[in-house]
């Protein structure tokens, strides 16, 4: 609810702004305003120009890139692609990253909802102590346990598998915390009581009543879980050894040390392939992502 009100606030604000603009008579655009727009557009160009250089250079041959700078595309994209693919299979990295990130997002969403519901609607011994302990552990940076984590995986024989990258997502303290706050304000206990009287089992209540109510909050958290997992570099770098199992970020590091690095056009193309899908996804989701960031920070 808290997260939701933040989104609602920003929505109602923009509605207010719109109505104010519409009711006032149109004035001439002043010079300071023009200047501000010029600066903002310049900033937008600076933000985008590294990507533009990347896209342009991805279509140019190595020789063309070495000989000079231009923002006009070349015609060597097919050759660049063939050169890159002869050394690494970028789509395999793509597939690996996708499998891991999707599973991580599902596990984190489901088990965090389960845990949040348990913390929110049952009274049991040690509940508060466990919750506080979880909050304290939330402050601990991921690198603190890195060496112990590696040793644990070695002893369990799960190095060079996806298990250490996926299973830990079932315990995401921050998501549990966020969902607990959310369900406490959105789900009234009387609804649970009513379902119990109707004879529903505890887990059925969770699956048919709590999960649908929590869905907006789960979706918000899922975006960040997915992005976090997709961009994670240090964990797969430590855990995975076989190139065919590499995730996209590790594959990018591998690309740098490989012979592809000799051919700049192929390098740019490889980077572009890792970047463009995220850009396209963002094109459709930008409003939702921006609102989620706003909601997440207000709640803090």
């Amino acid at each position: 609810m808290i997260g939701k009100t933040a989104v609602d606030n920003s929505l109602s604000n923009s509605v207010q702004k719109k109505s104010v603009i519409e009711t006032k008579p149109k004035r001439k655009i002043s010079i300071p305003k023009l200047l501000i727009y010029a600066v903002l557009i310049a900033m937008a160009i600076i933000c985008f120009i590294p990507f533009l250089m990347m896209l342009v250079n991805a279509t140019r041959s190595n020789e063309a890139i070495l000989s000079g700078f231009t923002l006009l595309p070349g015609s060597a994209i097919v050759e660049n692609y063939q050169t890159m693919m002869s050394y690494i299979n970028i789509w395999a990295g793509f597939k690996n990253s996708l499998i891991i990130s999707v599973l991580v997002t599902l596990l984190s969403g489901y088990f965090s909802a389960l845990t949040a519901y348990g913390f929110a609607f049952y009274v049991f011994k040690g509940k508060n102590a466990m919750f506080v302990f979880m909050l304290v552990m939330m402050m601990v940076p991921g690198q603190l346990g890195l060496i112990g984590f590696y040793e644990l995986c070695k002893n369990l024989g799960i190095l060079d598998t996806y298990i250490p990258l996926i299973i830990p997502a079932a315990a995401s303290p921050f998501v549990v915390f966020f969902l607990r706050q959310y369900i406490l304000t959105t789900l009234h206990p009387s609804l649970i009581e009513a379902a119990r009287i109707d004879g529903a089992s505890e887990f059925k209540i969770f699956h048919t009543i709590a999960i649908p109510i929590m869905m907006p909050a789960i979706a918000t958290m899922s975006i960040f879980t997915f992005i976090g997992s997709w961009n994670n570099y240090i964990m797969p770098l430590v855990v995975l050894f076989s190139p065919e199992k590499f995730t996209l970020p590790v594959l990018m590091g591998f690309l740098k040390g490989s012979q592809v690095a000799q051919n700049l056009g192929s390098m740019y193309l490889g980077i572009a392939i890792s970047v463009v899908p995220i850009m396209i996804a963002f094109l459709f989701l930008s409003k939702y992502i921006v609102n989620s960031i706003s909601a997440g920070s207000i709640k803090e």
Partner: protein
Amino acid sequence: MKNLNRYGYFFIAPFWLVFLVFSIYPVALTFYYSFTNYTGSGEAQLVGLANYKRLLTDTYFVEAFFNTWKIWGVNFALQMGLALILAMIFSDMRVKLKGIAFFRAIFYLPNLITISSVALLFGILLDWQHGSLNMMLMKLGIISDPINWLNEPTSAQLSISLILTWMWFGHSFIVVMAGVSGISKDYYEAALIDGANRWQTFSKITIPLLKPILLYIMITSLIGGLQLFDLPMLLTDGIGSPDGSLNTMVLYLYNQAFKYNNYGYAAAVAYGLFVITLIFSAFIFKGMYGKERKQPRQV
């Protein structure tokens, strides 16, 4: 009705099972290793506080500490400055800019891109002889000779700071704007009627009311900044070149453990980093809220 509260344990059991095995146990195991000379194979022998003593006198760790701070500090000042200026412009009732959604999206975009791709991209864009940045600047006549960005300590650190700013100012801007939209419009209208100028409105109304949000940005940015790894790892040779200037604390931790097999010492580095993060987070909290308590007395 029978007591259903025991179900609570069933609901939280999977979480705790995974949490104990994959989060708490590794943290505890790392703590144990920090008192040993473990090298990744064979028996770990207890060496008492030797690793921590070494940590305090290790010039590479001290260097990594200052490098991390320099890189983060420059980036944070720029990132926050930009975010606040943008927030000031977009929240100004007198200017009423359009297109905030468009600019927000463009400014935020770099934040979503995989950092290792960003590092790789800038690695070749910043290349001394063949990098597009030098070529563009020379074509525009801004510089006459190519600058070897990543070969000189100051410019290499500055490059990382600027890349981080590029990645994060849009995020900070969104968070600041979320805070601004939560401030009641009445304050601004009152300020307008009282004849306050833009700077007064911003410094006397917006900033004080944004304190919790600014604290949130600062602490999350600090925690993220102290863990800086991907960029320095992939921009140069992975051990902190040029001249150790890109040797950050987590890069040092990673190399000690997985490059030199000094697991015991690397564990102590991890705990050193943790203590540093705690201390500075506490400082920020105190700095932000300590002042607040004094204010009523001054009035």
